[in-house]
């Protein structure tokens, strides 16, 4: 079977790559010479893990015929809707990045609104109401009911001071 079409091989290659980076990073770990009674150092277990992972990956890629019979990657991803999925991931990423700047309320409101739009909700007024409602409701419950401190955000401070 074509290499790029086998789910097993693609996945194993990915983990192999990760393991190699992991292996390289092990040599950055300092070893404390003064702890002679600790026969296992901070490097020992990572070292074993990296070797096992690399071995299994190589097995998967070159030897194993494990479920090669299953559907190929190509057919498996047929009809996948990559666009909304990627857009949502990007929206979450932006939510995380802008959380401190926008503050809980504004960031959440915008994230939900964008999320609804990505998933093609056409009733804009309803979207607006739900996004505002959920953000406000959660904010009230968390800050007022449970007195959890949520940062009000740079934007809020720009307009209202601290």
């Amino acid at each position, binding site marked *: 079977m074509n290499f790029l079409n086998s789910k097993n091989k693609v996945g194993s290659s990915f983990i192999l790559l990760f393991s190699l980076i992991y292996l390289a990073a092990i040599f950055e770990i300092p070893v404390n010479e003064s702890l002679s009674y600790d026969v296992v150092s901070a490097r020992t277990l990572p070292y074993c893990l990296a070797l096992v992972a690399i071995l299994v990956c190589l097995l998967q890629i070159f030897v194993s015929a494990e479920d090669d019979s299953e559907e190929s990657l190509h057919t498996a991803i047929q009809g996948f809707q990559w666009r909304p999925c990627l857009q949502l991931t990007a929206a979450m990423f932006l939510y995380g990045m802008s959380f401190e700047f926008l503050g809980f309320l504004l960031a959440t409101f915008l994230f939900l609104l964008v999320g609804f739009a990505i998933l093609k909700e056409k009733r804009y007024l309803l979207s607006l109401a*739900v996004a505002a409602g959920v953000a406000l409701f959660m904010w009230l419950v968390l800050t*007022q009911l449970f007195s959890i*401190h949520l940062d009000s955000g740079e934007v809020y401070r720009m307009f209202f001071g601290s």
Partner: protein
Amino acid sequence: MNLLNIKLFRTQYTKTSLRILFYCVFCSVVPAALGSDRLHFLIPGGAGGGWDTTARGVGEALTRSGIVAGASYENRSGGDGSKAIAYMIETADRQKNTLMISSTPIILKSLKNIFPQSYKDLTPVAAVVADYGAFVVKADSKYQKWQQMIADYQLDPRNVRVAGGSVIGGMDHVVAAMALSKSGTDAKALRYIPYNAGAKAMVGLLSNETQLLSTGLSEAIALAEQGEVRILAMTAPARLSHAPSIPTLQEQNIDLVFTNWRGFFGAPGMSEEKVSSLQDSLGEMYESKEWEEIRTQRGWSNLFIRGKEFTEFLQAQESEMAILVDDLGLR
């Protein structure tokens, strides 16, 4: 509330807005008074931990005794406490009313160059509670006195393995090493067995895995009173009023006093009037019966050090630990 929450999604938006209104009214019953005498606590760890309970205990005593109008708490964990320090420094200009809680391990971590920023970049306000290092054996242990244990240790350090609730080079390890070194033995030969919490280390001792436990006095005292374990020594300067039967290292001719303080820091560049007014508030709290109640419940020892003395105290503790960390080769 679950029910309402669901309906909030399910019903049309006319109803939604009504419900939001309802919640606004409902929640405004909970007063959210914003004033300058409201204190804000920054806690470098999660809810329910040691820093968290201390900060909330102090905040509770301050508000209930009416010294401040209210207190809010912000948990900002990450980086083993260093995220909160960095946050205090970055946002110093709007942390005028903020107290960050901290304790001895933060000095140790700064020493080992783990943190990019040091506690020295912050404004020390005051230490409020203390805990002391305690050396604990099982009730059926053959050691009755500290010196008996030392004698055995000198024969072979493997006779006395020490459990502790911190990593190697962490506070419990360092305190044990200090005590051993002051007792005239080779602290480098110490077999320190790390556990990931004081309670787990206690289990290690009780299940006969180790012969000695190095931990905080407050964590061991209840079990000692109930006769499960015996405390050979602790590192306070003198016997404590709430535990008069526990001997200090000093009276056993070991010259070591070690205090695990918990105290507060302000943002860098906090004005002197602000610092002294915060210190006054904490001093006033010390007199209140609310504080006394919370303190005894939690088993905390009083330790109030403010102003210049606090800075000097921190420096002394740092240099004392620095020598040992270097001796052990842990830096």
